[in-house]
């Protein structure tokens, strides 16, 4: 591993983003818009907003980062730039680490902006620490980034990569416990939810909102484990030699 190649890659990705201000605006503003919509939707039911607000604070960034990362990585594969990078003195881990670094910073900024908006402007009330909530929102975004990177190797076109959103994210969204609490699910569904990463990302957010710090820490640790797993998978599926 070379830190030089990792930082070079991260700074190259930032340069690409700088040339695409519209994407940055979408990444930053879409979660705000969705949270605002939620607030209006539950205008007469403040309790409901307080309940679904914190989980969605993390899940919106997760979805956005998943899409942005998987499409960026796929472009690298299809444009031939990946092939060229594989002939240079850099390891596959350097490339994935560079991606992780750049998009984790982006994810962090996004999660902070969304949290300030939700807590400061929309009046989201958190029982636990607001800082912990921001931290877990960042973790959610990082999970989306890691999964997008890990799954991008399964897609051969940008259309396929975008289809992974409904195929991979929506089932997890349905099963994570937000719509129906896990203890009310049929046994098989509950078991399935237990092996899906987003379940723990949701639990960490919900636990903090409810003021249960230790349960949140466990769920956050599991989420972090899934991030590492997805990044490892992303590195392994990257091939220096291709058919």
């Amino acid at each position, binding site marked *: 591993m070379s830190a*030089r*190649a990792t*930082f*070079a*890659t991260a*700074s*190259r990705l930032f*340069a*690409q983003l700088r*040339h*695409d201000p519209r994407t940055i605006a979408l990444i930053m503003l879409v979660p705000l818009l969705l949270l605002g919509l939620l607030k209006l939707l539950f205008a007469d039911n403040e309790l409901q907003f307080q309940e679904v607000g914190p989980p969605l604070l993390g899940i919106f960034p997760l979805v956005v980062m998943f899409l942005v990362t998987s499409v960026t990585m796929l472009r690298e594969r299809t*444009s*031939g*730039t990946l*092939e*060229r*990078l*594989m*002939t*240079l*003195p*850099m390891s596959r881990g350097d490339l994935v680490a560079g991606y992780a670094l750049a998009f984790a910073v982006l994810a962090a900024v996004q999660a902070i902006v969304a949290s300030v908006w939700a807590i400061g402007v929309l009046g989201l009330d958190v029982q636990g620490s607001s800082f912990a909530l921001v931290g877990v929102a960042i973790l959610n975004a990082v999970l989306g980034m890691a999964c997008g990177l890990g799954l991008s190797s399964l897609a051969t076109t940008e259309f396929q990569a975008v289809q992974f959103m409904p195929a991979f994210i929506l089932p997890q969204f349905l099963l994570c416990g937000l719509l129906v609490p896990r203890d009310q699910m049929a046994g098989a569904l509950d078991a399935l939810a237990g092996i899906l990463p987003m379940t723990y990302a949701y639990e960490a957010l919900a636990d903090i909102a409810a003021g249960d710090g230790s349960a949140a820490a466990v769920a956050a640790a599991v989420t972090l484990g899934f991030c590492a797993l997805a990044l490892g998978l992303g590195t392994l599926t990257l091939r*220096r*030699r*291709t*058919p």
Partner: protein
Amino acid sequence: MPPAQAIAVRGLRVERGGRDVLPGIDLDVAAGRVTGLIGPSGSGKSTLMRAIVGVQVVGGGSVTVLGESAGTPALRRRVAYVTQSGSVYGDLTAWENVRYLARIMGIGDDDVRRVIEVVGLVGSEHRPVARLSGGQRHRVALAGALLGRPELLVLDEPTVGLDPLLRRDLWALFERLRDEGATLLVSTHVLDEAGRCDDVLLLRDGRLLAATTAAGLRSDTGTDDLDEAFVRLIERSGADG
């Protein structure tokens, strides 16, 4: 002492999509020369180049580059490769593209400036590559390949789609690089470009038709027309086989 052979390919077999793209090819590329890899599209030129730079899954045989097995980490600083598509980031400027590759290799901005000058991109280096012409885009990719003065340059169709003036400039650049000590392997499907190469490898259907020079090709086939020479070689190999 540099080895006399920059590249030695022995019994190289590559299968792609259930088809033998290279059914077992032997060839040598001499050090310090411009070698043209010439053949129609689909003849296996790109696959052969990918095997030489170590990004192609191979089914058998050996590829030795600068005395080491192709794709060895130590070769990644000594061999530079430009793909047919150029492989540049369209949303970045020429400068940012080349600087990224330089940073990976630990090469400073001085060399970035040098290679941008060498390929003649001064003045347009701060425009996004997507807004440059196809020829300029190729030169951005070429600039990246010149970083750190590699011993071997593997260039896949670098002159395709360029106007004759630019093509002539590029071939002059290749000759200059050779005079400075580099070895170049350049693929093209334009037979006329064989005349610019020191050595010529003619490839068809994954087989080596001839390893010769442009002059040798003409005298061997008894014609000055390189297209006609190629046809005669194909006919002759058909008669042999």
